[in-house]
């Protein structure tokens, strides 16, 4: 039933964490086939093996990079994704409702399945977290989204997947544009901090859209999980009901004591 894909351990602590996970799986009675990513077998191959063996649940045990890679390979396949987070971002933890291995293993046992929407960089690079474009100096970008367009100078653009954004039911991509050379100066910030005042930075933009195209005069890399996945111009869209994942059940908190 469960096929576990473990990330290649990078240190002794990673190995001990993976041992703990195996013990927890045995404790909860959800042991399945376990395989580890290696130079001989990459993530795509292991995913194909699991699908060929007709496992209905593939569990990613590792970081954001492993999770996003498996998500891309699971598109248009009838398979549920489980996640046991190891050094993952708060975005993945928010997605599955678990921040530690014990609660994640319990979630796998309880099997609450949720259908999620995903963003993807055309044609087929899916991600459930965030994609970023960065430049040390302000660069001009032309952004087309829905029925709008804008030319803006940026040093950092972050594109968040609809998976992690609360948008009142309608899946949307969330765009954050920043220019580090704009906004209040360091002196202003320091003076306001000394006098206990908060200073708003009106130079940041937060936009929501269903479809996005970013173009720049020179190609700029788009990075997901510290890996370059594309270069501008990029087109980012939403795929609705793209994947089934296992999440934690909501816990009922007791009253105040």
């Amino acid at each position, binding site marked *: 039933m469960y096929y576990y894909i473990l990330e290649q351990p990078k240190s002794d602590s990673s190995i001990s964490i993976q041992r703990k996970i195996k013990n927890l799986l045995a404790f909860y009675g959800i042991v399945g086939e376990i395989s580890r990513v290696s130079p001989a077998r990459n993530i795509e191959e292991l995913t194909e093996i699991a699908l060929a063996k007709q496992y209905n649940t593939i569990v990613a045990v590792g970081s954001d990079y492993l999770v996003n890679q498996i998500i891309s390979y699971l598109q248009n396949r009838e398979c549920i994704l489980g996640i046991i987070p190891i050094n993952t*971002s*708060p975005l993945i933890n928010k997605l599955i409702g678990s921040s530690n291995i014990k609660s994640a293993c319990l979630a796998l046992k309880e099997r609450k399945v949720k259908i999620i929407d995903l963003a993807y960089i055309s044609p087929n690079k899916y991600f459930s977290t*965030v994609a*970023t474009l*960065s430049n040390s100096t302000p660069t001009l970008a032309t952004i087309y989204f*829905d*029925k*709008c*367009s*804008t*030319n*803006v*100078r940026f040093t950092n653009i*972050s594109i*968040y997947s609809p998976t*992690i*954004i*609360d*948008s*009142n039911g*309608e899946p949307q991509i*969330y765009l*954050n*544009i920043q*220019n580090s050379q*704009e906004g209040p100066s360091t002196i202003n910030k320091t003076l306001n901090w000394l006098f206990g005042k908060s200073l708003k930075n*009106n*130079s*940041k*933009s*937060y*936009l*929501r859209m269903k479809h996005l195209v970013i173009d720049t005069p020179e190609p700029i890399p788009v*990075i997901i*999980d*510290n890996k370059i996945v594309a270069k501008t111009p990029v087109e980012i869209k939403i795929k609705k009901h793209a994947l089934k994942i296992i999440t934690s059940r909501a816990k009922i908190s007791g009253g105040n004591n």
Partner: protein
Amino acid sequence: MFDKNQDIGGSGTVVGANVKLNGVLKDMNDITIHGTIDGEVISDKNVLISETASVKGPMGAQMITVSGKVNGTITANKKLEITPTGKVYGSIATKDLVIRSGAVFVGKSTMIGHEKDEKSKTKQSKEKTKTESENSKGEEKETEKKSGGFWITNKQDDKQEKEESKQKSQYELEK
């Protein structure tokens, strides 16, 4: 590189101070504008136009607060407030209007909800004047009949009198 504590921001849309958008900006949540919009702004909730903002085009929301410059029509279903630094050039329609001292407003204002009262009032007054005019015409006819006299006579009576006098004269001639 990837920062695990990146700021996702609130639930609405924020247009930064040095951003210029062209087109239709639409959001189900609040919209805050610090930059420039050349087009339409539509929100299902609230819109805030800050002091540095400039909007050229129609705007629609439940509550709108203008502290910058707006060239276009504004429709605020609940409330519109123009602060001392706000400038609005265009027509506005709202249920509750607040214009602070120092604000600039050049255009036509319509209060939503009260325009129906105004229409029904004008309709009532029109009907009233119509009935009054009809009554006054009727009264004039009656006064014409009653007064008689040398100058004012009933034309029908005149005709009858003439016919009678003709008949009399004929009768006398025959005699």
